[in-house]
């Protein structure tokens, strides 16, 4: 069983995004975080202080742990931002402004 089958989803056709240069398929309607989880990716940020990896924590836009750089805009909450065809998603290092 998987979640899509559980609710008998018939998603629209997948599109592609890139994640740190790697091409990944994403289903329309999913947030960046959901697309990354579906691709088996669970972290996409390193912290400003000790450079530790982070990903989704609260999942509803409250904790700001899932910040990510999308199309050169850093600090997007991956759990809120919808994935769009051709998105260039990059692991955000620290504040996201040094790179």
């Amino acid at each position: 069983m998987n979640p899509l089958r559980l609710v008998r989803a018939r998603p629209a056709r997948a599109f592609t995004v890139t994640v740190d240069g790697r091409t990944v398929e994403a289903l329309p309607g999913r947030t960046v975080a959901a697309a990354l989880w579906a691709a088996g990716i669970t972290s996409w940020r390193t912290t400003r202080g000790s450079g530790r990896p982070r990903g989704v924590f609260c999942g509803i836009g409250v904790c700001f742990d899932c910040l990510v750089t999308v199309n050169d805009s850093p600090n997007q909450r991956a759990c809120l931002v919808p994935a769009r065809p051709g998105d260039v998603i990059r692991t955000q290092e620290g504040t996201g402004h040094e790179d």
Partner: protein
Amino acid sequence: MRTELVVVGAGPAGLAAALAADARGVRVTVVDAADGPGGQFYRQPAAELNARRPQALHHQWRTWERLRDGLAASGVRLLTGHHVWTVTGGPDSFTVHALLGPGQDEPATVHADAVLLATGSHEHVLPFPGWTLPGVVTAGGAQAMLKSGLVVPGRVAVVAGTGPLLLPVATGLAAAGTRVSALVESAGPRQVARHARALAGKLPEGAGHAARLLRHRVRPLARHTVVRAHGDDRLTGVTVAALDADGHVRRGTGRYLPCDTLAVGHGLLPQTDLAEGLGCHLDGATVTVDAEQRTSAPGVWAAGEATGVGGAALALAEGHIAGRSAAARLRGTEPDPAGWAPAARTREALRTAAAALDAAFAPPAHWAAQVTDDTVVCRCEEVTAGAVREAADGLGAGDVRTVKLLTRAGMGWCQGRMCATAVAGLTGCHSDPPRRPLARPVPLGILAGTAPDRAAPDRPAPDRPAPDRTAPDRAAPDRAAPDRAVSGRPVSESDRSPSEQASTGGLSSDRPPHGRLARDQNPPEAFEEGSP
């Protein structure tokens, strides 16, 4: 845009309130951050995923259908993608300030004669070693991602913490194909039994969850807690241990459970920022309301989890009462409580049950003893438990605010929503009401731009300038704006990681309302039809 009643939040409380007021002829606008109605409880899969059986991930689906259909048939205007950051004004003229869409960089305002806050709650998670590892998510977060994104974070999960939310999270993940190896609940049967009388109404629901746990072979570990999450760059397993009757971890009971996902939660915390901004009285963490669900601020009602965490059925009853009260008072008449007597009885019973649940599922009394000094407590600012303890024990901080000033704990993006209770618990400090004049980060350009809005022509009364009045200790927007507004950076106490997000556009605050056809057909109200 002007409306009579603006409802903030499109979850069960907000929708019940909106429908009740709409049915009584009030012009109602509901604003919500999500892409559609439902709130967290009835969070729906994204439309493009075309789920033909979304109810497989939900409980009380029929109630949702009534709410959804009632909304479609009503005159209620729903504004989605509106992230409300403050509400100003009163007592008979208010302005809701929102940011549009996931980019949250486009301002929108709604003017109203009265406000109804149905802002819900977010999850409470207490820290433990390893809780910042990728793969550790809040229980509600795992559920939210599942409900809307139809996605799970891994293959093998442990669900842990305390509270009634853990059961549907465990069964939901299991139904979606995740192997849930254990449900680790710190409360024991004895604590629950102590409140058996008040919880009797909740028994069928609990029994249903228990049967599903059994079916999915989820091992229940009552009176246990996660003492550590393991892994280098992501979660590989957790150590769980038994608790004694006093809530201490029993020595020698630790055991390792391999997993790539830990869904953890210790209850829910009411979202009260907007209420505080409006000057509503709070009792501890919850907004104080009277029998009509009126807050202490004239013209402001509140319903649902913001007034006390108690679940969707309680939220529906409170919302219904609040909507009827607001409708009557907006017409200058005294509401007749006899009209909502069934809802009031439900509210009474469910509040009693909620208090019992709260007592039965309190976090383990000595959770702080498991938090090692090197454990990060403030996830945003990476402040360790050691630093927090030093602020209290070494530097004499006596309240959470002073600990924040000394350590930056609670000063980051989430503004202490994730760590304030932990800081209070670790230090024994008094936890003041948080006081967040801005309920979410706001671009300075928008803050600066709110000034003209205050003089909008359709505003009959002068407004209370919230940012200036309530945030005297912060940079005055007008002074800060010229050099920062250009970059569109949001205001946050941690301005080291600002958001610079492109506009996603496409969202308008002037969408046409849902069909007004059925206005006079006495639209179904979920509470009246669906509750005992």
